[in-house]
């Protein structure tokens, strides 16, 4: 079920923020193109805070050891581990909706 998590304005352009959605920690990102992405908040490698990572349109780079994860498939660039990707969108009234 998809549910509203925050206003898109709560996410600075190009950055990530973390939220708890139904007891799960989720990192939301607002891309420069305007789209949003949602993935699990902790890096599977060493628990790094992915919401603090740098992003572009396709990847997030974990701030601890610089592993890059594809924001669509969840796969790590080197093939080491992957993260959960959650479908999400911005609604007409500017809310970011995530489904777990």
């Amino acid at each position, binding site marked *: 079920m998809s*549910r*509203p*998590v*925050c206003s898109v*304005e*709560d*996410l*600075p*352009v*190009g*950055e*990530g*923020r*973390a*939220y*708890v*959605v139904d007891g799960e*920690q989720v*990192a939301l990102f607002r891309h*420069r193109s305007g789209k949003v992405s949602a993935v699990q*908040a*902790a890096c*599977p*490698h*060493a*628990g*790094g*805070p*992915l*919401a*603090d*990572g*740098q*992003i*572009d*349109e396709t*990847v*997030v*780079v974990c*701030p*601890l050891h*610089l592993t*890059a994860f594809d924001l669509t498939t969840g796969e790590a660039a080197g093939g*080491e*581990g992957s993260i959960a990707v959650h479908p999400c969108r911005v609604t007409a009234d500017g809310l970011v909706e995530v489904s777990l």
Partner: protein
Amino acid sequence: MVVGNGMAGIRAVEELLDRGGAEQFDITVFGDEPYGNYNRIMLSHVLSGEETEEAIFLNALPWYAQNSIDLRAGVRVDRIDRFAKVVHDADGGRTPYDTLLLATGSTPFFPTMEGLDLDGVFTFRTLDDARSLLTSAKTHRRAVVIGGGLLGLEAAHGLATHGLQVDLVHSPAHLMNQQLGPEAGRVLRRKIEELGIRVHTGVRTRGLRGTGRVEGVELPDGTVLEADFVVIAAGIRPNVDVAVRSGLEVERGVVVDDRMRTSHPDVYAVGECVQHRGQTYGLVAPLWDQAGVLADHLTGARPDAEYHGTRTSTKLKVAGVDVVAMGLPGPERDDDEFVVFSEPHRGVYLNVVVREGRLVGATLLGDVRKTAFLTQAFDQGLPLPEERTSLLFDLGSPDEATSVAELSDDVQVCNCNGVTKGRIVDAVAGGCTSITAVMGKTKAGKGCGSCKPLVEQITEWAAGGDLTVDESVGWYVPGVPLAKPELMAAIRERGLKSVSAVFRELAPGGVEDAKSKMGLTSLLRMMWPEGIEEERDGRYINDRVHANIQRDGTFSVVPQMKGGVTTPEQLRKIADVADKYDVGMVKVTGGQRIDLLGVAKEDLPKVWADLGMPSGYAYGKSFRTVKTCVGSEFCRFGLDDSTQLGIDLETRYQGIETPAKLKLGVVGCPRNCAEAYVKDIGVVAVGAGKWEVYVGGAAGATVRKGDLLATVGSAQEVLTLTGRFIQFYREWGNWLERTYEFVPRLGIERVRKVLVDDSDGLAAGLDERVQAAVDNYRDPWQEGTAPVTTGQFRPALPLGMPAVRS
């Protein structure tokens, strides 16, 4: 049908697939453990925390699906009905087969003793074992490991890295007695004891003590080693249960012929469960050989392929110590030649055993540079140099390149993943022309990593100088195909003042690239000191919150402490802040400052406000700190006021962005108490008002004494020359290139000509531009009172679980 989902079984399957076996066989794999196929050798790294579980998987579950392999993970096979050609599993299932491969591996061996049934007694063999040990390590303090072979040492090391008190009990007289002689065992013991592990050799365990749960390990003299848990790592035995129940011929292991066939037609066996020509093996190398022979045979690729046994050599890293052992650990006959070099203090022990002019044994401990040549000599029986010491040291024996060329194709280079020199050469022939590509294709070097240098040498040799250097190496950042001078010219020409603008105008397809953003932000801020179009996502997290991210997602805060000088009042305030925010640790840094570690992200602005001190720049790619000694003010030897000069330097150049971090030191005499000779910029008072300025020093992962740039006659000249060097480095240094790489790249003579003699007429411009950077300095901690972005200081791992707005 494959019974066994471990390294041997799956290696055999991979070899089959390589030879087109997917067309000939529908493959079913039974595995006891509910996982894909992982690298058992790497379990010790999981235990020590150096690797994650994910990283040790050779083939995760999707691989089986991609290759149409029916994996029955977590299903134990009970017996094989060879007449009906059906396998019975523990779930009551019956699965027919045409050809069966037994690869059941081995199981831990339990020495006879009381108390093995107590709680808290573990083995160390499977991923689940590693997990249980990890859990126990977190909640207990004392562990006893029984067994001082490879596995026991790895277990002890892994547990010690978690801070446990570890006792290791080994009944033979020295450690790793299977592979090492007594003297090498003693040198290894020293290294193990340096890790804080207490080693008891020549001691058989009398029994485990405790009621319900294990409490200690009793030795023959009645001593009881207290233990919260015990790990039994006393060896392994071939796992022959299924074979015995199925009526196969079994001695110590499942008996096979040279084609890996058991006593039943259509039932084969490989790996540690096998006994071949009376020999059983507990290492990976034989298992790769066996898998190859089996696949050749089953697919008909080489019907006459035969396995003739493997001369085992062991190449591993035990508890952080490199160990190579092949053949005999010491002389056996009167006329065996034995050359030994031992340096126990350094943890180095080397020997070779030579019989009739041939190498029949070698041990290398702590210094394994001669591995390639010795492996070759051992495997092939090469004639040896007359001067035997040259087997251990480079005294005219083949240099590295020659020895790589001479290695035969079937020499195993990577033991973790069973990759031979031939496979690497094939990968290069198949189009892999960079080391990364070879590693990606063959998996060589992707296990413990100890073979990486050899993989690189072989790749270079095989590519014959045609090694492609990734062309992006010359680019300033990976996402924009321009070297730094061209990039700067384009930015200036087009007046680009934001990271997005650079991507839009200069990146292929205008595509932004996360890994390029930080470098571009730094470059733009250097080029436009009056200000750029600030985009916070262009900064690394440290530069977004002006603190240093730590492993748990908290941050560390370092207040400015110019020249290492502080006041009682500042110390009191730091102490108060540390108390108030319950910081995890207060620590003096290597740069003479005080680090408050473990500060929550959301507390950063409050911490800064309460401290009321400027940022000390312990986080960025920027000018960080100036270390000083006491200088002339109090020191008996000080020739000049280094403390004041350090403070002046730090005041002037604080916070300036540089290609990589920049650390300085100033000392009042050549005694060098603040280690100025190994700083990016080091200044040394030599008396009579004169100062030496050194650049390009390092005392980190690389140690390098700086090069003398100039000797100047006043503190003012030091300030000027330092600024000129900083700006030169900012403009010409590559992104993330430290000065210890930058200065040697250009050569100190060139740097001196440009900066001191002004040979290129650059000096005035450099001075002017660094002045502009100084003039535009602003303490980033002021952002604490007015956040730049929404939620700038919101926790990113919401441990406190702030509620979702609904």
